[in-house]
Every structure is written in structure tokens, then in C-alpha cells.
């Protein structure tokens, strides 16, 4: 594994290895000295074409804890409108002698292009591209589920037998895509809940069970409910009539939350629209792992950085 571009092409062994190393990273997370020297002398660029304080901060924390030198390169807006192409930026970074690129980009496939264009020859980590994938988010979600289910015995385990229900804008969600592929690879079964307008037209080809009613899906029993952020602009493009109706049919309202089995895990990749896709009662409940997701994000990203940047050619052993 040289890059982390998607979970679609991440095999089970590599995925489990990343999660296991993240467990070890987590074991350092509680002590006074949190820094590890593993990536000392390595320069990692956070190349962010989209604002995302959460993801960038999480990567930055992961890089710093591994002693890497962090260079934040924010190039807001598309490369075309800015006048400098992705190619020129990549070649510039390459000339600076950096060791890895973490890229967040509004265009699907931009990390793939960076990794395979020959413009730059370093590991590329996808920190979210357009409506394509967000692999580290899916990895931290899987890590969080596994930790909740298996605790200290998580190492080496997959998610066989776990039922995960993903609710919301599947069509535009890179989080949903990455989760669907990774969860399937790890043996979980995935249920999708959304109005048809927010599903890909060819959802039938995906390894998921599709529901249109959240109540029916929840009543059928699931171990994890993952709520996706709904973008306000979807309303103006006729994907659904208004926020009130969306919340009524597909939101994790207080009422729906109270009907959940007390073991059901509640997750959300953030940032949340409280009162729209998720009620505060659900988000702040003991069943909610939303803050664990944030802390685990750092460990999983440390693991990914460690896995890609060490080794003779960044190869997994």
C-alpha cells in the first residue's frame, strides 16, 4: 500500500492492520508525553482545497504526535479559479522535497490524480474528495465501532455480524461511500436509509440493503445508526421539500431515539445539524460515540501516516 485513496481498494488485511496499529497509537494517547519519534524528519503537507478545520486539525495533531514536520497549504477554491493548477502545485511541493501529501479537494478523484499523474512521487492520503471518498473517516468509524464492541480485545477483529444503518444523503456523501466499502470488507452488513432522490441511481449494484422509511429500518434492529450531515443546498435543488419534512422522515428525533434499543450505537461524522438530521437528545446521549469518533480520528490518522511513511518503500510488511 503506497497511498490511501479510497476504501474501495483497501483489502481486509491492510484495513485490520491500520486499525490494530491505531489501537497501539491510542495506548499512547493518555500519557503525559504523547509525542512519538517515528516520523522525525519527515515533512507532511496538508493540502486543503476545501475548508475543513476538523479534518485538518485532526491530521495535524496526528502528524505532530508522530514528530513529522507539518506544512499547511490551504488553496481554497478550485485550482482553475485560483490560476494555479493542481499539477503546478504538486510539482512545486515535489521540488520542496516533501514526504507525503494529505489532500482535501472539492473534485472527486483529485487525490487519485495526484497519486498517479507522476507529478509528485510521495504517498498521498485522501482527506476527502468531492463526493467520492473519505477513507480515514470510515477507518475511524470502524475503529470506534470495534472498540465499543470488543474493548481491549479489538486487535485482529473485523466487524462480522455487525449491522450498520447509514441514514441520509448517500448520493453526495463521501463518508457514506467510504463506510459502505470498508464495512462490507470488514464483514458488517450495511443498511441505507434515504429518500430515493438522495440515493445513487444504481444503488442496486452496491452491497447494501435499502430502506426508505427510517422507522422501518430502526425497527428491524441494527447495532449502529450513523447519521449523515444534510447540506442546506440540497433543499434548493429539489432533493426534498424542506428541513421540517426531512427531519420528520429521516431525522434521528428525540422520539426515534427513545425507541432505540439501549445498546444501539449512535454515530455522526460531524459537523452536526442539531434538530435537523439528529436531535440533541440523541447526539448527547450515552449511546452516542460522536466525541469518541473525534478522538479516535487522531489515532487512526497516526496509524495511516505511520503505515504509509515508514518502511523501505512505504510497503506494508
Amino acid at each position: 500500500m503506497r497511498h490511501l485513496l479510497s476504501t474501495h481498494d483497501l483489502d481486509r488485511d491492510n484495513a485490520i492492520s491500520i486499525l490494530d496499529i491505531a489501537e497501539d497509537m491510542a495506548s499512547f494517547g493518555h500519557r503525559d508525553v504523547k509525542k512519538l519519534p517515528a516520523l522525525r524528519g519527515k515533512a507532511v503537507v496538508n493540502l486543503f482545497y476545501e475548508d475543513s478545520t476538523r479534518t485538518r486539525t485532526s491530521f495535524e495533531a496526528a502528524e505532530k504526535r508522530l514528530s513529522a514536520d507539518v506544512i499547511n497549504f490551504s488553496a481554497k477554491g478550485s485550482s482553475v479559479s485560483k490560476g494555479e493548477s493542481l499539477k503546478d502545485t504538486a510539482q512545486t511541493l515535489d521540488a520542496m522535497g516533501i514526504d507525503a501529501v494529505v489532500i482535501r479537494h472539492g473534485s472527486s478523484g483529485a487525490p487519485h490524480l495526484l497519486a498517479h499523474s507522476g507529478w509528485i512521487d510521495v504517498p498521498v492520503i485522501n482527506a476527502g474528495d468531492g463526493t467520492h471518498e473519505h477513507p480515514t473517516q470510515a477507518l475511524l468509524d470502524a475503529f470506534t465501532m470495534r472498540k465499543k464492541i470488543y474493548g481491549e480485545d479489538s486487535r485482529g477483529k473485523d466487524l462480522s455480524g455487525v449491522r450498520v444503518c447509514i441514514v441520509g444523503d448517500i448520493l453526495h456523501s463521501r463518508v457514506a461511500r467510504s463506510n459502505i466499502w470498508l464495512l462490507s470488507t470488514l464483514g458488517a452488513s450495511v443498511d441505507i436509509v434515504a429518500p430515493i432522490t438522495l440515493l445513487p441511481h444504481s444503488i442496486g449494484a452496491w452491497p447494501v440493503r435499502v430502506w426508505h422509511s427510517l422507522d422501518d429500518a430502526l425497527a428491524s434492529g441494527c447495532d449502529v445508526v450513523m447519521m449523515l450531515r444534510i447540506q442546506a443546498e440540497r433543499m434548493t435543488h429539489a432533493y426534498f421539500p424542506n428541513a421540517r419534512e426531512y427531519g420528520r422522515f429521516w431525522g434521528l428525533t428525540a422520539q426515534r431515539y427513545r425507541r432505540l434499543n439501549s445498546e444501539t450505537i449512535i454515530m455522526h461524522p460531524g459537523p452536526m445539524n442539531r434538530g435537523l438530521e439528529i436531535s440533541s437528545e440523541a447526539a448527547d446521549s450515552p449511546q452516542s460515540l460522536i466525541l469518541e469518533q473525534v478522538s479516535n480520528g487522531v489515532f487512526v490518522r497516526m496509524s495511516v501516516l505511520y503505515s504509509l511513511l515508514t518502511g523501505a518503500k512505504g510497503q506494508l510488511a
Partner: protein
Amino acid sequence: MTTSTLFLNARVLGADSENVLVENGRIARRGAPADCEAVEVVDVAGNIMLPGLVDLHTHLREPGFEQSETVLTGTQAAAAGGFTTVFAMANTNPVADNAGVVEQVARLGEEAGYATVHPIGAVTEGLAGERLADIGGMAASRAHVRVFSDDGKCVHDSLLMRRALEYVATFDGVLAQHAQDPRLTVDAQMNEGEVSARLGLTGWPAVAEESIIARDVLLAEYLGARLHICHVSTRGSVEIVRAAKARGVCVTAEVTPHHLLLTEEFALGYDARFKVNPPLRTEEDVIALRRAVADGTIDIVATDHAPHPIDTKDCEWDSAAFGMVGLESALPIVNKTLVQTGMLDWSAVARVLSSSPAEIGKASSAGSLGEGAVADLVIFDPHASRVWSTSDLSGRSLNTPYAGIELPGRVIHTMRHGYFTFHDGNLRDEALVAADAQKYGHLSSTQTVAKD
């Protein structure tokens, strides 16, 4: 002074070898004896002779986008691909929506001499889809425009489309529709399906093309007008055209070489060389399109040669330009997808790549190898296979999707109006071609055609 060329051992339209004598820009004699008098004798050793190819759908980019292509470089690419006539699309800058622009393009073509250039006129002013362009003015101009298209944009307003069909018919023209519902394709990047869903690229549903074609064949039927559909790309579109033809609607359709060969799977690497409008579709569509050419539902193959500078392709997929160059590779791809598959013989190839497009575009001097016809012809070796590369291109841009793909066949000679534009695998010198064009260009000049 008489010029003449004797082609020995030419398999005309794939038939048995014969000798063909060209004199003073015309086919003088078929089945000529091997020892007849000629200035130049060319033994083509059993290769195929076809009438010079006619492309009803070429983007020459001049005026306005000369960094991508010019009339000269685009017609050089045409000559290298065996084309002797090209119809130049109207989406230039300024748009070819008035007599001035179309006459300029036609004149540049005449001067360069590598191919006969028929400008296509815009349907609407500035391709804006709001008001009709100067259709009559372009039809009556020296460029003698007979094909009108807003290609790149769809004439989507139904009332405007009705008026355009009627008005173009008034001038004995044909409207070539770029069938794309703009609302169903907002921000669309590639065929809508499993691949677009996985790649997170906004889908371009087949129905966005099919719904426009369905409406337009109904309009054409109602109005009794002639309609041509550009670059049909889906199985559903084929069905609509087939049903319309069965009812006697006066509709013709084209398919591009790339839609006959490539599928949406090529988008998997986010390589924008495969980004094109309409998008590459599925294997099922490719098969339906090939069958449609074979059974005549689709009348012609047209390249949609769309040159773009390298930096508009060497970038993020959704920022990249739509389109691919296709003049040089068209005949090898037709060979691969239709001839080698047994779906077309060489006389049918001559129909879909020469006589039918000439007929649709009213380029009456093109498309024939009969005695007395203007000597536009191509010699093609169908067996010379090669791995395609950008070095096989003769135009200004390099955005070919076929680099690294093995394509069968090679154009050996292209002759326009009795003089070579492409000789023995090489483009002929610019100055020599321009000089020959001055002597023989009149054979297809608009005045001549107008008198016919």
C-alpha cells in the same frame, strides 16, 4: 498541363484489385490497363480504396481557439485520417452565426487545401438558445451553409426548436441537434450508473439525451422537416431513431468512433482524456450502437474531433474540458469495431464515412469513386496494426484517448481533387498542397456546387 495518377492494384470498396486512373482532379477511368499513360504511377498493392472520407462533425476551433486547432492544422489531421471533406462546427469565437465567420472559415479551408471545409452555421445567435442566427444569410453566403447546429449546446427550448426546424428547412438545410437536456445534466460529468456512483462524479443520465431525441423526432414528424441527430450514444436513443425511421420520419443519426469503442469504465482512473460530451456509456450501449450502424438505423460515423490544449485535460476531472481528437483514428476504429467484427463490409464503410455524410450535408461533389467523380479518395491498409500514440496525430492538440491501445489499419494515401494531401504515410508539404489547391479547388467550390 495534364496531371494524372494511376493507382495500380486498388481494391476499390474492398472488391477485387483494379487500376484507377485519375486525371485533372477527377476519376478518369476505372479498370484502366496497367500500362496506360500517367504522370505518376502508385502501386497500392491490394490495399483498400475508399472515397475520401467526409466528417459531418469536426471542431476546427478557428477563429478564437487557435491554441487548440486551426483550420490548417485540423484539416491536416483530417488528411492524415483519410478525410477529404470536413464540416466545421459553429462553436468558435466569434460563433459562426453569420455570413462573415462562415465565409472566413471556408476561405481558410480553400487556402490550406488539405480538405474541403464546409462551415456549419449556428442555429441560434451566439449559441445562446434564444434567438435564431442569420440562417438565411449563411445559406446564401459564399460558404453555402446547409448544416446548422448549436453543437456543444442543445436547442432545448421546444418552441425555438420548432421554429428552427421550419426555418432551416426553408433554406434546404438540415438541423443537427446536440441532444442534451440541460436541466437533467446540470454539472454532469460522466454516464450515470454504477461507475459514476462509485467515483462520486455527477451522473449524466441516458434519458437526458433520449428525451430530447424523442421530442425532436416528433417535431420533425409533425413538421415534415429534416433532422439530424449528432453523436447518438445510448441504446435508448437508437430505439427512438429506429422507431421514427420506421414511421417514415426524415431523421438521420450519427455515432462517434469513441462511442463505438470505449465505455464508461475508462473513467475509473479519473483520466480526463476520457471525458467527453456525450459521455462514454456502457458495454450494452456500445453493442447497440454498432448494431445500429450495421442495420442502417445510424446513418453515419462522425468524429466529433474536439481538440483541447493539454492543461485543460491534465487536471481534475470536473475541471477538465469535454472532448477528444478523432480524425486520425476514425478509420482504424471503424475497422476494429465494425469491419473486423463482420458487421460492415468496405462498401458500407464508404457509405457511413463518405457518401451518406456527404448527402446529409449536401456536399454533392464528395462521396463517389465513379468515373467522372471528383477524385477524393483514400488508400487504407486494413492489416497494419499499431499501438496508438500521440505521434500518430497531425493536429495541434494531443488529447487522444487511444494512446497505448492497439488500433488496426493505417491510412497510406489521401488524395483530394486529384492531388495528394497525405502521401505514403506522411502529410504532404503545406506549400505544395496550397499550390495544388489553387489549381483544383474550383472542383468543389461553392459556385460549382450551386450550379449543379
